[in-house]
């Protein structure tokens, strides 16, 4: 069994045909992690015992001939900022290195109910702040296509685990591109759901108005199955949308006629000189492929695009400075030896947080300060409004928007650590989507077999609010076309 080729449907069928058991699959994955992961650093914590226990339950169901749910026995990895009861969740930070979750996040609960086997918690940039995985307080995860390069971030370990076959699917979290960007760097499908489509309960918050739990998969249907399992209204998250439900069947049934009825927009502001030749070539290849399916294309304009990243770097730190105040060594975090209260806070937080969280907390305090609030924070909220309106106007003309996911392919370790702004720029095409609360998906321009030593390039599709089905539908057709023609 080639672990990195498995899909949810293929595993499900193998279980039903008794080609292998859930315990055998889980054991093989756990062994693979044990042997290989020290080289790639995808996992921070492996849940050997619980994973095997979960797999045993699935095998019992199979022995009893009970109906096996589709996700039954499917190995999943969870980013370390998503809570799994009785297991550590460090969010990639030293300040939480001793923190164990006392409850399951809603997405965790939903995956468990669907029968998925959670194999472990994955590496990440500290508190989901970063675009390379290099901000992990423990060790950086490495890109499976070239270990001298970053896998992207902040959900770096989840991407690496799925690309390697150390999990079949994984959950990450998105605030400004933290799933789409690593999906693009690691040749995966990454789906950022509409704000409100997935519960955030039990996700360690970074910027609450932008955060969303998001799945990684090696193909479109697996991403759809994972999204089906985790989405839906949750009374424990007041921002989760009432009456929203998504069914993977919508994607399976997405017909060629529906595909041909679509108009895809190409926003001229996204095709900028900063895009590398290699990336541009792959985007052109994707457009040509979709045109061969007789989809209409149209040039559009999203005039406020260039303001999205500066806007994000005001709103996000403002929310960070507030959300991270709970990590003080008393309510959460590691308590030092200091006894005087004030000094204790300062020390616990000074010692516990790494460079990037400190930078963002301080920046957040700055933009929220009296005298700067109107100039920075309020202005950013207004610009956010304009960015959202740009998208709304565009979706009157087109059904889906296509852009590169990132301006470049995976970059080298250390390439962008010196200058924070250069690191921030790698999210330039993903951030606007989070500001507008829209769904977006990154899919690889080529199948992994046809890369021939090249690094993967991600294509981004952006859709209307709660229209994940169309994005997944386009991606599914693309995948089929590419695999038939061996492109």
């Amino acid at each position: 069994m080639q672990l990195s080729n498995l899909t949810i449907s293929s595993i499900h069928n193998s279980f039903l045909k008794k080609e292998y058991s859930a315990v055998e699959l889980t054991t093989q994955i756990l062994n693979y992690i044990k042997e290989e992961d020290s080289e790639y650093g995808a996992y921070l914590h492996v849940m050997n015992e619980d994973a095997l226990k979960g797999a045993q339950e699935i095998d019992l169901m199979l022995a009893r001939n009970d109906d096996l749910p589709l996700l039954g026995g499917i190995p999943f990895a969870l980013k370390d900022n998503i809570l799994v009861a009785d297991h550590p969740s460090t969010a990639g930070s030293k300040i939480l290195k001793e923190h164990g979750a006392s409850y399951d996040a809603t997405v965790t609960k939903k995956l468990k109910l669907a029968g998925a086997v959670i194999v472990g918690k994955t590496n990440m940039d500290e508190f989901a702040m970063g675009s390379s995985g290099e901000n992990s307080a423990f060790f950086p995860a490495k890109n499976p296509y070239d270990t001298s390069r970053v896998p992207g971030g902040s959900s770096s370990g989840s991407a690496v685990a799925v690309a390697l076959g150390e999990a079949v699917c994984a959950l990450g979290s998105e605030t400004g591109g933290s799933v789409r960007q690593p999906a693009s760097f690691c040749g995966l499908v990454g789906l950022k759901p509409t704000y409100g489509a997935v519960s955030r309960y039990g996700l360690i918050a970074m910027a609450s108005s932008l955060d969303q739990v998001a799945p990684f998969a090696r193909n479109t249907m697996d991403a759809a199955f994972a999204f089906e399992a985790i989405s839906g209204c949750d009374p424990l998250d007041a921002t989760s949308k009432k009456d929203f439900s998504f069914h993977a069947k919508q994607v399976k049934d997405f017909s060629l006629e529906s595909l041909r009825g679509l108009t895809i927009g190409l926003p001229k502001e996204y095709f900028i000189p900063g895009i590398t030749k290699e990336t541009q070539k792959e985007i052109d290849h994707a457009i040509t492929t979709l045109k061969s399916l007789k989809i209409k294309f149209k040039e559009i304009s999203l005039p406020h695009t260039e303001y999205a990243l500066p806007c994000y770097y005001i709103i996000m730190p403002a929310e960070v400075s507030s959300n991270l105040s709970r990590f003080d060594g008393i309510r959460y975090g590691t308590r030092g030896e200091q006894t005087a209260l004030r000094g204790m806070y300062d020390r616990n937080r000074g010692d516990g947080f790494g460079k990037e969280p400190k930078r963002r907390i301080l920046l957040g305090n700055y933009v929220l300060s009296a005298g700067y609030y109107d100039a920075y924070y309020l202005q950013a909220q207004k610009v956010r409004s304009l960015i959202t309106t740009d998208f709304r106007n565009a979706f009157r003309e087109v059904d889906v928007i296509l852009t590169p996911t990132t301006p470049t392919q995976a970059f080298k370790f250390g390439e962008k650590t010196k200058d924070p702004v250069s690191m921030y720029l790698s999210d330039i095409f993903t951030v606007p989507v989070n500001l507008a609360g829209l769904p977006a998906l990154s899919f690889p321009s080529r199948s992994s077999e046809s890369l021939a030593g090249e690094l993967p390039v991600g294509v981004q599709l952006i859709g209307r609010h709660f229209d994940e089905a169309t994005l997944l539908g386009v991606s599914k057709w693309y995948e089929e076309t590419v695999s038939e023609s061996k492109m």
Partner: protein
Amino acid sequence: MITGKDVEHYAELGRIAITAIEKKALAKDFEKILEYVKKLNEVDTTNVIPMNGGVFFYNRLRSDAVDLERRSDKVNETARVTHSFPKSKDGYLEVPPVFTE
């Protein structure tokens, strides 16, 4: 212009102890980031309503009632909370004394 003193002030607001080296580096980073975000001032936002959440949704409230199903979970949750805490005793969290002689 962001000075070391400014950085100190915002670190203090955030209750974060920073070293002299960090202070210098942060001042430099701040400069760069603020220079970058300054771009927003180019945008005319007269009469624009600020967007202060993930989407233009209304807040959804739920009744303040005990959910019995969740309550049964709570028994386990108490044990889990004490377990996840560095020190605990008989179902209570153990912390250094607040009042001493």
